[in-house]
């Protein structure tokens, strides 16, 4: 019994200390002035890897999610004779919720796991150590550009996701199911507010982008430098990021939209 309690306590301490380590890690990454001359090309490279290469999966998923929303929404709304509200439903769902959340989940699976594996492998092959021995701080050289890239790329990806989703919903709703296009857009425009819905959705995706990339680079940097260690760190990245995104989404939604 005592052992159980002790194990539980140890688990709690481990959790707290790993939070502490990741916080110190973050301070190390963000502390210090970035040097534009060397930093900019590195950031470009990472934005390409994290952002541009994630576009296909984001576009395809956005399209399908929008189309599914239109189909599902149409079935339900046509029972009440208000198919015209389909535009509003699709836009609000995407802009407030599915855009930021699904993008973040896809991002964690595609870009986050790749970041963890890459940094983990650099650690395992002593590249990080050798950089340190050459007097270059790997936190700034390797980790910081990746963190910033994820932070910048996520809202961009989420915005593209929402737009593609709405377009997909319009394809199905208007071109296929025959909702009148004017009321599709009209209903949408009268119910979606730029600040309350669009910008709040953007705030969500900025938060998710930061948290997902932070988890990914931290797990890579902190992993046990063996193949088993890297694979477990990659798994942890996806699991923790997904949980963090869903949990934070609830908190943010409650704060942003809770009083409606």
């Amino acid at each position: 019994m005592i052992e159980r309690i002790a194990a539980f306590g140890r688990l709690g301490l481990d959790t707290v200390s790993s939070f502490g380590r990741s916080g110190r890690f973050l301070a190390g990454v963000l502390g210090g002035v970035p040097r534009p001359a060397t930093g900019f090309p590195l950031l470009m490279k990472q934005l390409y890897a994290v952002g541009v290469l994630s576009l296909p999966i984001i576009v395809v998923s956005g399209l399908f999610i929008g189309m599914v929303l239109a189909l599902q929404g149409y079935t339900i709304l046509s029972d009440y004779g208000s198919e015209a509200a389909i535009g509003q439903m699709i836009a609000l769902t995407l802009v407030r919720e599915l855009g930021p959340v699904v993008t973040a989940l896809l991002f964690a699976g595609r870009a986050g796991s790749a970041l963890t594996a890459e940094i983990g492998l650099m650690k395992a092959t002593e590249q990080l150590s050798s950089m340190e021995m050459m007097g270059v701080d790997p936190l700034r050289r390797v980790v910081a550009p990746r963190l910033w890239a994820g932070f910048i790329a996520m809202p961009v990806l989420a915005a593209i996701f929402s737009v593609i989703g709405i377009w997909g919903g319009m394809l199905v709703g208007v071109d296929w199911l025959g909702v009148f296009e004017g009321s599709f857009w009209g209903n949408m425009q009268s119910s979606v507010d730029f600040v309350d819905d669009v910008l709040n959705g953007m705030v969500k995706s900025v938060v998710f982008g930061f948290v997902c990339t932070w988890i990914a680079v931290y797990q890579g940097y902190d992993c046990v430098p063996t193949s088993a260690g890297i694979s477990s760190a990659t798994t942890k990245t996806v699991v923790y990021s997904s949980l963090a995104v869903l949990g934070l989404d609830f908190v943010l939604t409650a704060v942003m939209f809770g009083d409606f």
Partner: protein
Amino acid sequence: MAQRTTEILVGLFMIAGIAALLVLALQVSGLSPKSAESTYTIYANFNDTGGLTPRGRVSMAGVTVGTIESITLNKETFQARVRMSISSDVDNIPADSSAVIRTSGLLGEQYIDISIGAEVESLKEGDTFYSTQSAMNLERLISNFASGRAGN
């Protein structure tokens, strides 16, 4: 060279993101550059606002001319006081117009419709509607109908 390609692709990516945000702003949320235009505030008192919410629209003849800013309770009269901002373009609402709460469709959102009066004077900043018509309450309507029948 490869560096240059990367930069161009990243540039396109960022442009796509900004374009997407613009689409969300203009096409999806109907935010028009004119939205910062000047407005003036008028009030209306209702016995029952029903499901009216802030941010709802105010329209005349079906055209949106303003938005509902806030809905508060007047503690002396126990009426709801609705504050709305009307576009300055529409500065000739006759002073004896009335504000009517209507529902778009059977289950749609509620909005304020201004039914036009005949007076030459028009409503100014801070004025209050002289006559209003509260929300149509479906339940009350049905019970009125039922009791009317019973009395018949």
